[in-house]
């Protein structure tokens, strides 16, 4: 696949800097967050991918020129009720992918809400990417590319239409994020662990383990 050519995952770290970044995936349930991560990390697609409860954690390394970028990925649960868990994961994250399902316009509105929340509450220089997933279902498309692109431009988001199923643009979107992330910031060199105790107290809305 063409997107592998420029140094997809698993190319092995060579000499040079190693950076670690925390990345969080957000978006309505069943838009394909877990599927995107699984495609990126293991190169697989499971039709019957299990739903995510709470959150799942995975890591993957990509090589960018002379830098090795290690992503620590938090794949969150999409159901609105689990919303209150989200701050625990996006706080301290350097990057976020907000995912919607391009066959379902409601998930696009939900994505916009996530973007707003990130802009307000996440760290100010967080890199946000918008992914319109399930691009393989072209005949069922309900969100136009132009519309999403315009929204992304307006908000300075990276934007791609992806398909976890066919692998289209999956590595690309992660690579694009890796490129945009600052590589010389000392704080990034060993990555930050999420500070649960702190974030736990600061969210007052209801739900599971705020």
């Amino acid at each position, binding site marked *: 696949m063409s997107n592998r050519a420029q140094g997809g995952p698993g190319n092995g770290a060579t000499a040079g800097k190693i950076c670690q970044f925390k990345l969080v995936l957000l978006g309505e349930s069943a838009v394909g967050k877990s599927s995107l991560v699984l495609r990126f990390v293991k190169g697989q697609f499971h039709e019957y991918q299990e*739903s995510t409860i709470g959150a799942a954690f995975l890591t993957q390394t990509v090589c960018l020129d002379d830098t090795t970028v290690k992503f620590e990925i938090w794949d969150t649960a999409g159901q609105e009720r689990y919303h209150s868990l989200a701050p625990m994961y996006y706080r301290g994250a350097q990057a976020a992918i907000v995912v919607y399902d391009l066959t379902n316009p409601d998930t696009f509105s939900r994505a916009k809400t996530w973007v707003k929340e990130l802009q307000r509450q996440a760290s100010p220089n967080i890199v946000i990417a918008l992914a319109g997933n399930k691009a393989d279902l072209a005949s*069922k498309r309900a969100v136009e590319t132009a519309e999403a692109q315009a929204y992304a431009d307006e908000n300075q988001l990276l934007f791609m239409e992806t398909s976890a199923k066919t692998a289209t643009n999956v590595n690309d979107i992660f690579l694009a994020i890796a490129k945009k992330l600052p590589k010389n910031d000392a704080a990034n060199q060993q990555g930050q662990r*999420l500070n649960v105790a702190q974030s736990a107290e600061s969210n007052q809305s*209801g*739900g599971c*383990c705020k």
Partner: protein
Amino acid sequence: MYPTPLASPGLSFAVHSFLASPHARNTCGHNGLPLTPNSVRILGRFQALKKLTHPCLATYLDLQRGKHERVVIVCESYERNCQKLLSSDKSPTAEINSFAHFDGSPPDYPEVVRRIFYESLHALAYLHRQNFVHHSVSLESIQLTDALHVKLSNHGTYFITENGACVPFPIGLPKYLPPEVLLDPKGLHSPKTDLWSLGIVLLELALRKELFNFELEEQIALVFECASSEKPVMCILERHKLVYEYLCLSEQVRDAIEACLSVPLEHRPSSEELLSHPYCDMQIEMLEEPPKGLPSHELIGADQIEECIENSSQLPEAWEVLNLHELYYFWRLTGGDALAEISKQRDYIRSRPAIFGLPNLTLIEGEDCGAERDSSYYYRDTYLRLPMDSLRERLKSVDPDIMFISISILFERFNFERHRSESFTTKTASELPLVIRERDIEYQIRRIFRFRKLVELYPLTGRAIQLEAAIDIPPYFRGHVWAALLGAQGDYHAEFDEIDKDTPTPMDRQIDVDIPRCHQYDQLLCSPVAHMKFRRLLKAWVSSHPQYVYWQGLDSLCAPFLSLHFNNEALAYQCLSRFVDKYLHKFFLQDNSQVIKEYLAVFSRLVTYHDPVLSLHLQKEDFIPDLYAIPWFLTMYTHVFALHKVYHLWDALLLRGEAFPLCVGVAILTQLREQLLTFGFNECILTFTDMPELDIERLVKDAVDIFDSTPQSICFRSHSKRPISGMTPLSLETLREELTPRISTDDFFIALSAPSSKDASGRTTLRERVLVLDVRPKEEYLEGCLRGAVNIPKDVAFTPEGKLASCPEASALAAHKGNIIVVFGNEEDRRKVANQLVHLDYRHVCILDTTVHDIRIRMSPPICLY
């Protein structure tokens, strides 16, 4: 000597098999996911057939999927059928006399025909009442038992194939199908289709001759000719030159035949109407009496109990009560394998080398053209009888006492000493690994016999079921036993019927996206029928629990109950609802954060209590349960383990209280302990992203041990269904700050008074010695203390490095390491000491949950130990 059903030498299990239509490659459904294979759709619908019970219907037992969309159906089968009767070299009468057993003199042939007709019609009426259309009634489908009763077969094919939509062949033979069906083969066909077919069958039987023995086109032409004729039967008779023979038949028969062979549907009687035809005026005992034995998929209601007890005191013959489903279960345990039997028959699955099936042209959409159709795609009405000898032999050698014993345990008044050899074998066998026991026929026969009576007489036998289930639960009865353990009873059908399962709600989208992701590796649960049932159960639960909401994860909780009670949604619902109530009280509140946080904090403290080293390591790594254990508890492990593991885990869970799931969590961590201790945060969390392969039997055993050795109050939660009274509810902050759990005074005194002893079975009980560590200042201690308490005042307890200060009391404490240490004192002091003990790797440290003031009354003057 066996009475029914094994008594009949003509009975065996048989398979028949066909190929479901394959989907074209790479075709997807509307959601972009691959289409459900037709064989899976069929499997889902098949389950409903197992529920059908009518004395004149052959029982459907099992459906298995083979390669290439092959469907293999196992059902009850008899050697004889009406077709063989007519095609035999002998006259039909002679043929009948050659196999049938009669009390008294054999009935004359027209009487036999009348009975066959009546019984078949009775069976059809039963099917029609439940909205099944047979669609394949033929001479061959009417099987005959040795007592010359009807066992109608093949009645499920039309239904399971979604009226033929899932298979590449038409269902039913054209010569038996009415004109309206032949005209519109894909349409929705009325139950009256079967009446026409039965009319043809009756005509053939009465004339003692198979009709339509000519080319297919001619057969169809003849049916169409009937369609335009005043009197269709005459068309057929003229064509066969049988008018004279027909006119010699009795008027009643002819009238019944002609009623069936009416072309306009409104003139053709329904099965129910035809039953009141004078030709059907007969009495057959078997049809009036309900069948003996346990209904195969029901838990009985309270009203039937009395009757059951009366019957059971007559000690029926063991084999009389085994139904076909149980026999089939045993058949499989003796090594029976329907798929393997079928593939042994080379000519049954005749497959051509794949190269001959290559298409001439493949369209870009994936459709193939020009491939010659493999003849294995045609329907073959052949039944392959399965070997039954080893089952018969096996059952013959079973100790007849089993039946007797299984009943005696029910009645205290028959409180016999259990048969010695029996209890011996059961005991030794129950020490074998569970997976072996579950496949051991000898052992399962004993267990099933023990349980079937218990289950039949539930709810009277609730206690006995618990006792037996503690040994193990035979998989065959797992669904029933679980229902009993959860206390399901009452009119749960009516209750379920009343719940609104259909009105759309905002929750629907989430439910709909979750179901196709829930335990879909399971063939049954991924069928459309299962999805529909999932949806109804979840919606029913949500709508009848207005105080709760749907959280992702409830779907997983539903899965084990659905798969065990696939044919009894009401019971599945009842179990789900009771289960959530008992183990997940308040978990599904809209705002469940306090409940879950408390649960996780209690869990952390339990880990500390049992394994301080591991617990501190995980805390140091910030690897907190909030990050990994929510799916464990919220779904009671159904989201993290496959169903076969959940079964064994829940077998143990359902016998125990609310604290058991916490103990399972501890057991998981301890099973992975060695790795976790070497892992940093990332590796730890990655370990649980996909639950690693765990030895489930060991896990259950560890969890049970942990549960047994943990005083109840250690797992106290203020949000539990019935919080232990007298315990101080703690804030989340305190729960986190105070590393060790608290013990109630009641538990404390129990622990104190119970000497470590051996229980009846010879196992040492898990009670440990208890040491009271009094951390108050010396003066207070000397005023009075708990008997046997060791006093190490908080201020002098530890060296600046945090080690235990050296003093005789400290040595006593050190000598006690590993046993229960109950810390007693003032709020702040006891917490500091207890936490420090944890850092010194002391296990089983807990804080006595009482104030100094309250306990004064129970104190005795100090006893100097050293």
